[in-house]
């Protein structure tokens, strides 16, 4: 519905849309790769309009860092309290590595060498030659990507 207001003769009309009824179906699929991803997802969910008339299907996968576990609980709480209906599928989430010991578990050869190289590049104090774009941030993220790919189901 629209409310059209005209203050006085010659004044511009003011149009206000008014939601009156109906349900919204939303599906959100999110792949988590780094700490903070889940916080951004929570903000995005909080910003959704009219949650009381929204049905939400949330699917998350990827890496779950230790500090993001509380965020996951907050999201579940928001889904349960604000939305008309909501469910979350977090079965594809894997815990982020707490250290680099997982590298030793990689297949020997090129992959393990690559992981070792990325670990060196991820160190800001690394004094060796860096190829273009191989900043510590990118190298750190590349390690996480490798970890995620290596820990996927069937790997």
């Amino acid at each position, binding site marked *: 519905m629209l409310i059209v*207001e005209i*203050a*006085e003769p*010659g*004044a*511009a009309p*003011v149009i*206000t849309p008014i939601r009156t009824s109906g349900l919204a179906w939303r599906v959100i699929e999110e792949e988590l*790769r*780094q700490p903070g*991803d889940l916080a*951004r997802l929570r903000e*995005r969910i909080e*910003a959704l309009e009219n949650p009381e008339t929204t049905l939400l299907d949330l699917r998350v996968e990827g890496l779950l860092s230790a500090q993001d576990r509380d965020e996951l609980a907050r999201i579940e709480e928001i889904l349960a309290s604000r939305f008309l209906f909501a469910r979350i599928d977090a079965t594809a989430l894997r815990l982020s590595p707490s250290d680099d010991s997982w590298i030793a578990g*990689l*297949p*020997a*050869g*090129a*992959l*393990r*060498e*690559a992981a070792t*190289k*990325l670990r060196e*590049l991820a160190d800001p104090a690394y004094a060796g030659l860096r*190829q273009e*774009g*191989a900043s510590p*941030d*990118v*190298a750190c*993220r*590349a390690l*996480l*990507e*490798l970890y995620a*790919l*290596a820990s*996927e189901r*069937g*790997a």
Partner: protein
Amino acid sequence: MILRSIAVQGWRCFANPVSVEPFTEGLNVLHAPNATGKSTLFEAMRLGLLDAHGVSGREVENLRPWGRALAPTVTVEFSHGGTEYRVIKRFLDHPSAELERRENDSFVRVAESEAADEKIREILTRNPPGRGLSQPKNWGLAQVLWAPQGTLVLGKLSGDLVVDIRTALDAQVSGPGSGPLEERIEAAYLRFFTTGGRYIRGKDAPAVARLHESLPAAIEAQRAAEEQQRVFEDAARRVEDLRARRAQARRDAEGLTKSLREARALAEAYRGLVSDKAQRVDRVKATEAQHSEFKQRIETIKTATKELVDVRQAIAQLRSELPSWVREVEQQAIEAARTKTALEDVRKTRGANEAARQRAERAGRYLDELRRASGFDDRLRRIAEASETLAQYKLERSRLVAPDAKMLRAIRKAMKDHDDAQVRLEATLITLEIVPESTGALFVVDGEDPGERSLSAGVPAQVKGSPEVVVDLPGIARLRARGPAGSIAEIRIEREKAERKLKTLTEAFGTADLEALDALQDKATQLDERLSAAQTQIDTLVAGETVEQIETERATLAAVISGIVADYPDWHDAAPDAEALRALADADKRVFLAALDTAEAARDAAQSALNAASQQRGMVEMRIEEADRRERSLGAKLAELTNDGKSEGERANELKGISLAWEAARAGLEQITAKLGEFGDDPGIAVTTLEKQLQAADDTATKALEQEKSEEGRLMHAAAQGPYSALARAEEEVARLKREIASEELRLAAIRLLRTTVEESRNAALAAVAAPVEVAATRTLQRIAGNRLGRVQLGEAFEPTQMMPGSADVPVSIENMSGGEREQIYLATRLALADVLAKGERQLVVLDDVLVATDAGRLARVMRILEEAAQRLQVLILTCHPERYRGMDGAHFLDLERILSAS
């Protein structure tokens, strides 16, 4: 794979069934003469193992024996992975394929048709051909292991073979379990990037591309929200400004209304004073004019009266001066007449002076004319003398007959012709000279001057003649002398002709002597020169005139002289002194001119004095007349001014009364002016200004109110759009997009780095493990060709690319090697790669008619190497020169020709 047997039928040259077996697991040499079918067997084995049975096309049609409707069929038995297989394939007509496996000493069918094709192919390659027969790139391992006829060259390996080789080279490149993870890494990479490393475009483009596409719109929305907010804030600010402006205008109008009321009262009082002042000014002006007029009249009467007295005195004075000026004029007139007479007297002496000057000039001319007459006389005398000389020369020249130069040249030529004829005549004559010893006589019978001649003892006598001379010496002998025959008659005619011409030419001059003729010519020339000189002298004297003209001029001059003498007869006897006469005339003239100047000056001075006196008298008379007119005018004016009948005292009293009235009017005016001065400027101007300001303040208030209403409308409209919340949303959206872009770009960069790092690690490992192949190939090559060729270097696809000789700093391309060296390099590389590929199982190596360019010495070393290779590989050599391989230990020879004849 180990080959056990090959059987074909209906295949090119093998129309009937032929089976070649058994092949040992070591060295096998299949030999036969050319065109027996060795390579055909190899081809049948390749198609049986690598190609689909349903393949068609011209190439496959060519397999059918010429002129026969047979279906090419091949049967290959082989072992692989410890299992014995048999494949039977039929092509073209009712094509079929069967794969059998030996089970309990008999072959059992395992697969047929396409399944059989696929299963067999998996043994050698995972890279089947798309259409048509398989190409080397589809051969898989056989690219290395099998060398077709004469093609030992190992090109760039392709298909999955490189992967197979790399896989076989060393497990350290990718350990167990690496494959799936590497595939996932590759898949993750290809989800976002093309193989060329660019972002995927289109519907499968990575999210960052969509985010980048969304960002400009979000930024634009943010900018629009900022603009919307700015519009709202501007509108609010303007409403506030307009309200303040309207309130101020209202306050200004109230103040102005009060000021206007006060100003209008002042203006009313001011206008009254101004009106009163105008009346008083009129009154002052009127009394001032009356006073001025009356005072002027009194002054005029006084002035006229005084002036009348002065005029009358002047008239009397002038009339008293006039007689003396009349007398002065008369005296000056007498003096002027006297000086004029004196001047006339002086002028009268001008004629005598002029006559003296003329006499002097005539004397000068008389003397000049006398000198000219004398010159004419001398000139005429010299002309007469020159004419006489000229006439004498002309007479002398006319008497002299002399040849000119042309005639003289003609005479010389005639003389020369005559002399030439004479010489030739002399030369033509025969001369007989007789020197007698005693006096006697001779008789010329034939010759010049015939007749008798006397002889004197000892005096030579000559007789000439032509063409012969005959002389009789009486009593002694007749002498006859002959010479060459010549035309003496013609020469004589020429000489006579020359004599006649000479005579004709010289006859007029009286001599034929050349010197005399030259003298005559010289004399004539001298006379001509004198004539010319005399004529030139005459021409110079007459100077372009004729003698008659000169004589006429002389006569004219004589008449002039006679005329002068007639005027001055005394000059006939004694010539005048022209200079003295001229000096005397000049002196008289100077005296005359001085007297003339003096007389003229006196006359001019007297005349000037007369004129001045006359002018002065006229002026006095004119001034008297003018004064009379002035007297009359003043009298009339005075009569008019005093016609009021008042006395001077009465007029003075009246003037005093008028002065008092004027003074009173001025005092009243000053009083009013002082009051007006207290106002400063005209209060009416201030009223007008205040009225305008009040109107402007009212307009400002009204306009501000209108604008305020309008801006309030805009403000409400802008407020209704929620600018603050819209801007906040837009900023949040832009920030979110930038965060997500950064996150996505970080992820994509990470995936790219991950893939690049893995690839670099793998390449580094591969480079390390490819080295053994190069080492093995180099070792084999050095055994064949020595150390000279150096080290084999392989390309990315394991093809030999160049050699690195130990003595050279730069690599040498394989193309620069000799034919024999190239096939040895390729053989060494193939064997090295075969060793790598055969690590898991013995493999079949086929060499079809290769090593054709290798010399016997190196071939012997190749034999040894092949013997060693046969310990690890099954080697099949196809050749038409079995004798070359006879020396190999353990070699199994199969004679195809014998097999064919047996079948």
